[in-house]
C-alpha cells in the first residue's frame, strides 16, 4: 500500500457519461493485482473529507487506468481533471481476484462499469474464457474491444435491446449454462450491481462452481480502520463482519450472507 501523488497522463471520454483516467503511479501500478482498487482524493471537491474508491481497469509497470461513470458529486467533479494535474492515490488496496486453476474455464459476468476490473483480470488469467456484459443500453456496454483483442468470447445483453440480446445479462448467461453446454469445470468472476452478483452466485452454487464477486460498499478510510464497509461473511460456520476494503472487495459467493 502506497500513498502517491500521481500525475494525470490522459483523461478521456468513453461515451455515455463514462470516462477513462490514466495516471502515472509506478509504485502502485507495478504491484496492482486484478480486483484491487485505488482510493482517490478528488481534486477541487470542496468540503469533501472522504476519498473515492475505484477498481483498477488497467495497470502496467508505471501507469494505471480507472474507468468510471459520473454518478454522484465526486465523479461529477472529476470532469475537471486535466492532463498533468496531480491526484493523491492510496493503493493498491484490498485483495484481488484469485487467478484460479488453469483447468477451469473463466466465466466473467459484468454489469455496466463493473466490467473495468474484469478487463484487468482477463489480461492476467492464464487461459482465455467467456465474458457476459450487460447494461441498460448500448452505451453501457464497455470494453468489448479490450476482450476481443485478448481473444475472448464476448456475449452482450441490453435491457432495451439496442445491442446484443434484449434482456438481462443473466438471460444470456443462463442460455449458455443450459444442459449440455459443458458448464462443469468453470469458475465465475463477477462485478456489477448487487442483483447481478447474487444471481451469478446462485448459478455457481447450482453448478457446483465457485464465483468470485467484487463487492461495492460505502467506504470511508479504504484501509480497514473505520469499519464503514463491513459485509457479513460466513466462514467455518461462523458469521462475522469483514471489511470490504481490507478482506475484500472480492469474496467467494458461498461465503457472502446477503442482507
Amino acid at each position, binding site marked *: *500500500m*502506497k*500513498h502517491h501523488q500521481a500525475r494525470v497522463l490522459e483523461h478521456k471520454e468513453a461515451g455515455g457519461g463514462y470516462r477513462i483516467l490514466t495516471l502515472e503511479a509506478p509504485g502502485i501500478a507495478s504491484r496492482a493485482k486484478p480486483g484491487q482498487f485505488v482510493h482517490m*482524493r478528488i481534486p477541487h471537491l*470542496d*468540503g*469533501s*473529507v*472522504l*476519498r473515492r474508491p475505484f477498481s483498477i481497469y488497467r495497470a502496467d509497470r508505471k501507469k494505471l487506468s480507472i474507468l468510471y461513470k459520473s454518478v454522484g458529486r465526486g465523479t461529477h467533479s472529476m470532469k475537471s481533471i486535466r492532463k498533468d494535474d496531480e491526484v*493523491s492515490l*492510496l493503493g493498491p488496496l484490498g485483495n484481488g481476484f484469485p487467478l484460479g486453476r488453469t483447468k477451469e474455464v473463466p466465466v466473467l459476468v459484468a454489469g455496466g462499469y463493473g466490467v473495468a476490473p474484469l478487463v484487468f483480470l482477463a489480461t492476467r488469467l492464464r487461459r482465455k474464457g467467456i465474458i457476459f456484459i450487460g447494461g441498460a443500453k448500448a452505451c453501457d456496454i464497455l470494453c468489448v474491444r479490450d476482450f476481443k483483442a485478448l481473444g475472448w468470447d464476448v456475449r452482450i445483453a441490453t435491457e432495451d435491446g439496442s445491442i446484443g440480446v434484449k434482456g438481462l445479462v443473466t438471460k444470456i448467461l443462463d442460455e449458455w449454462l443450459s444442459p449440455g453446454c459443458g458448464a462443469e469445470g468453470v469458475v465465475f468472476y463477477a462485478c456489477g450491481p448487487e442483483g447481478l452478483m447474487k444471481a451469478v452466485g446462485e448459478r455457481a452454487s447450482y453448478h457446483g462452481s465457485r464465483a468470485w464477486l467484487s463487492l461495492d*460498499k*460505502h467506504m*470511508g*478510510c*479504504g*484501509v*480497514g*480502520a*473505520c*469499519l*464503514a*464497509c*463491513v*459485509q457479513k461473511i460466513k466462514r467455518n460456520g461462523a458469521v462475522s*463482519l469483514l471489511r470490504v476494503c*481490507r478482506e475484500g472487495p472480492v469474496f467467494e459467493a458461498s461465503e457472502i450472507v446477503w*442482507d
Partner: protein
Amino acid sequence: MKNPVMVASGTFGYGPEYAELVNLSSLGAIVVKGISLKPWHGNPTPRMVEVPGGLVNAIGLQNPGAEKFISEYMPFLRKYDVPVIVNIWGRTIEEYEQVAERFDGVKGVSGLELNISCPNIKQGGIAFGTDPAVTKRVVSAVRRRTRLPLIPKLSPNVSNISLFAKVAEDCGADAISLINSLPAMVIDVDTRRPVLANVVGGLTGPAVHAVAVKLVWEAARAVKIPVIGMGGITGPREALEFMIAGATAVAVGTANFTDPSTSIRVINGIEQYLAGNGFSSALDLIGKLKS
C-alpha cells in the same frame, strides 16, 4: 509524548491499518478504536455518509473485545515507540469497570480514554456523558479500578461543558479529551429515508471545528488538568487554535481518512510555528489567547 499530536479513536483502527502509510513512532500517541469487554458487532450498514465539511457515522462501536485486542494487536503496537491509549466503553457502569480493570498491567498501554457518549442501557439509553450525576458515577467507578492515566472524552451534546470538565477533574481524571462527535442525521430526499441504517449518527470533520474550539476553550478555563483538543483538524492551524484555546495536546481524527499524512504535517507545522514565533516550547503557547 514526544509531541502533542495524537490520532483520535475510531479514525486510526488499532495501528496496523495505517502502519504502511504513517511512521507510528513519530506520533505523540495512538488512541485506538473503542474497546468493550466483549466483542461487539456494531450497527447495520450504511454506517457512514459524507456531508459538506465532514461525515456522519454510526459504526456502532464494532470491536473485537478486550481479550482479542490484547492478544492480537498489543504485540504489534509494542513494537513501536509510541504511547498507546486505549479508548474503552461499556453499556453499564459494571461493564466500564470490568474493561478498565482488564487493561491494568497490560504492557504497552499508557492510558485509558473513557468514551462516555454511549447510551446507558440501564437508564433509558441516555448517554452517560450528558448527565453530570451519571458522568460522576462512571468516572469515579472506573477511577477506582485502574491505576492508568484516565482521560474521560466529553460529549459536546451538553449545555455547560465546564460543569462536565469539573466533574471529570473532581472524580480523579488525569486529563480530559473533547470533543466527541455531534449528534447528526442525513435524509435522502429521493427515497425520503434516513441515509444511515441507524438513522442518526455523529458528525465529525472540519464542520465541527469551530464548535470544538469554543468547547475546548471553555473546558480548559474550568479545570487544571490537561485538555486534549480534537474536532476538525486538517492541518497545523486548527491544532494551534486548540492549543491557544488551552489544549495541552490535540488529536487528528477524520482527516486521517482524507490524508493519512495529516498528523505528520501537523507535528511539523506546530514545530515551525513555535520556532517562527519565538516560543521555546509548546507549553509556552498553551492557553495564550489574547483578549
